[in-house]
């Protein structure tokens, strides 16, 4: 048959071509470089059909269809562009409220709240331990009163708000719900996300409150309460971002994030919830690092792994339970203090990886974040970067445009396999909670961080301005520094003192007693927190009860 002979001839030609190419490669003079991903995974010089063993229906499918490798929506960005969501927060609630309005005025489509460290750790601004930290890396929110100022003039029934907070996440969510109620908004109409991902706090970001078991119980309480009362709320944003920023490889970010996600699902099912009720309210948050292709593959692999496990391991029937919807932030760690304007370019590449990887929302870092909090000008450039990608480049017209590339598919599979190996290892070590308490995950991340640092110092990984193309004169960059006025701390002290005078002390005490009682009886804590919020109990007071009842988390020593 002609066809068969043609196919056979083609094969002979291909074999011959390959042989000639291999020969040419042996003779070629190559750059003195390590040909690996930024995570250190080896790369071939070229990928061919031999590197891909793909069943289209099984492994890729169409956008919006299992296993969602190609994206979670059938129309992807033709239906709706990604949400441009810049993380912001500093100083007092009034200052952040102004920045929010500035961002909304410039076309941002969702809010994202950054809190200061005292708030993240469940302390009021006027506790001694908060000294020097109030309003520094985010906004200080010590009570419902601060939340009311933060959201003043912003229609809470219309915007979606993401709150990056974990240890005290249920308390902050209670402030938000109570604030909405005071604005006259039914909790059913509130939309947004609370990060509430405590496992990665122990592993990487380190803003925790109580030990793992009571913390995980509170997460169940949030899922249960929101399923009934705040149904549009994303109850956990399972985050790889901080794992990656702490130094992990792409494969580790993928593996540890999804392993954490599976743990929340297991706990939810064990608490008696229907997986198809709560799983669709889980969302994800990944890093977009500067290794463009590895990142795109990571996003694709994440969707496929999650879909498969949800369906096959956890018996999810609703396709929405199997979809990873995720937020992406460009990599803070990739930015350099040297020649900071170059960071605009890095951020652009990373943002494009997020978009080609099919993200649902995106934060682009500002060029000056290695120096201080971003200035307004830098934030605007970062937002404009997204708008240029969305409006000018035409990249949003086609879903998963890199699918079918031998390289992309092979690397997507490689990341999936690496993640599966980690899942097996974690299982062998007693599960993700045991691995975290023993410091296994922290040690893996630390090892990768040191390896990368070593590679940069040895020059095998290059960073422009740091170990190549260094400019001696940039010790003092000509860039504005955004400083937090020390008055912020004083102002917060005064606000809190006034609040404690103004509120009904008996009602506040009664609510705190109820919180304590629920800690002991197993009653839903989020419900108690909402009541306590309305009585203007402060964050530190409520978290204080939790610390007394549950104890404080102690990190394992890994060094």
């Amino acid at each position: 048959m002609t066809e068969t002979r043609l196919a056979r001839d083609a094969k002979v030609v291909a074999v011959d071509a390959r042989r000639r190419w291999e020969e040419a490669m042996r003779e070629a003079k190559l750059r003195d470089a390590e040909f690996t991903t930024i995570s250190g995974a080896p790369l071939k010089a070229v990928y061919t059909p031999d590197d891909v063993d793909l069943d289209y229906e099984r492994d890729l499918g169409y956008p919006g269809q299992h296993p969602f490798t190609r994206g979670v929506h059938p129309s992807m960005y033709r239906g709706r562009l990604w949400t441009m969501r810049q993380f912001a927060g500093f100083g007092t609630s009034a200052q952040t409220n102004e920045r929010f309005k500035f961002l909304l005025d410039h076309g941002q489509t969702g809010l994202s709240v950054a809190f200061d460290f005292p708030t993240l750790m469940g302390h009021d601004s006027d506790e001694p331990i908060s000294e020097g930290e109030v309003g520094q890396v985010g906004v200080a929110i010590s009570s419902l009163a601060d939340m009311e100022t933060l959201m003043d003039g912003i229609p809470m029934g219309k915007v979606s708000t993401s709150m990056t907070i974990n240890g005290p996440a249920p308390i902050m969510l209670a402030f938000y719900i109570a604030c909405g109620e005071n604005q006259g908004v039914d909790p059913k109409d509130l939309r947004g996300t609370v990060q509430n991902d405590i496992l990665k706090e122990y592993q990487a970001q380190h803003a925790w409150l109580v030990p793992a078991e009571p913390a995980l119980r509170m997460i169940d309480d949030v899922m249960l309460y929101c399923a009934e009362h705040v149904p549009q709320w994303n109850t956990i944003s399972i985050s790889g971002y901080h794992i990656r920023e702490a130094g992990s490889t792409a494969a580790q970010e993928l593996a540890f994030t999804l392993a954490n996600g599976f743990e929340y699902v297991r706990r939810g099912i064990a608490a008696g919830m229907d997986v198809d009720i709560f799983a669709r309210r889980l969302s994800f948050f990944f890093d977009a690092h500067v290794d463009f292709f590895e990142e795109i593959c990571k996003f694709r692999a994440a969707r496929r792994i999650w879909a498969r496990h949800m369906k096959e391991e956890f018996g999810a029937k609703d396709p929405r339970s199997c979809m990873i919807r995720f937020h992406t932030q460009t990599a803070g760690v990739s930015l350099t203090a040297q020649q900071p304007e170059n960071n605009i370019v890095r951020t652009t590449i990373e943002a494009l990886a997020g978009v080609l990887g099919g993200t649902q929302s995106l934060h682009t870092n500002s060029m000056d974040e290695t120096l201080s909090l971003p200035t307004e000008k830098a934030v605007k450039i970062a937002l404009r970067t997204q708008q240029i990608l969305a409006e000018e480049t035409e990249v949003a017209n086609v879903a998963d445009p890199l699918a079918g590339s031998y390289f992309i598919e092979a690397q997507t599979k490689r990341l999936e396999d690496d993640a599966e190996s980690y899942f097996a290892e974690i299982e062998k070590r007693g599960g993700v909670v045991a691995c975290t308490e023993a410091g296994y995950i922290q040690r893996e991340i630390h090892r990768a961080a040191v390896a990368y640092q070593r590679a940069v110092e040895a020059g095998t990984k290059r960073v422009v301005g740091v170990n190549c193309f260094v400019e001696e004169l940039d010790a003092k960059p000509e860039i504005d520094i955004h400083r937090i006025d020390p008055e912020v701390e004083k102002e917060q002290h005064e606000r809190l003192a006034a609040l404690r005078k103004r509120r009904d002390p008996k009602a506040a005490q009664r609510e705190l007693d109820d919180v304590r009682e629920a800690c002991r009886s197993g009653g839903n804590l989020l419900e108690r927190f909402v009541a306590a919020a309305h009585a203007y109990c402060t964050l530190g007071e409520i978290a204080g009860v939790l610390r007394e009842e549950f104890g404080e988390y102690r990190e394992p020593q890994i060094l």
Partner: protein
Amino acid sequence: MVERKIRVLVGKPGLDGHDRGAKTVATVLRDHGMEVIYTGLHQTPDQIAEAAAQEDVDVVGLSILSGAHMSLFPRVREELEKRGMGHVLLTGGGIIPTDDMAELEAQGFAKLFGPGTPTDDIAAWIKSTMEARWENEEVQT
């Protein structure tokens, strides 16, 4: 003559959870033959100074990325002085604007390091500074 080992305390004052830099530097200093004690996260200035005194270290290195350096770094220095540890070589790093670095250096911090500093440079600087100090001590005694 037995070679004297440099003893270093790496501390994370305040509530800042960013410990990648501190842990990386701690590991590298250890690789350079120093004895390194890492305090762990969320330490008060008081706790750090106490640990430094207990361990009788030669060097205290602090790391802050949360912007609280202007209040917490000087507090650590005060606490060290209270314990008769004013002689330790005081250093640190993090997201610290250059103006602040200059001010802290004027207050008694020997040197502060910003993002992108090669860790080997930090190790080399500690080594040469300590060796110079010890040589000086020997000359004086």
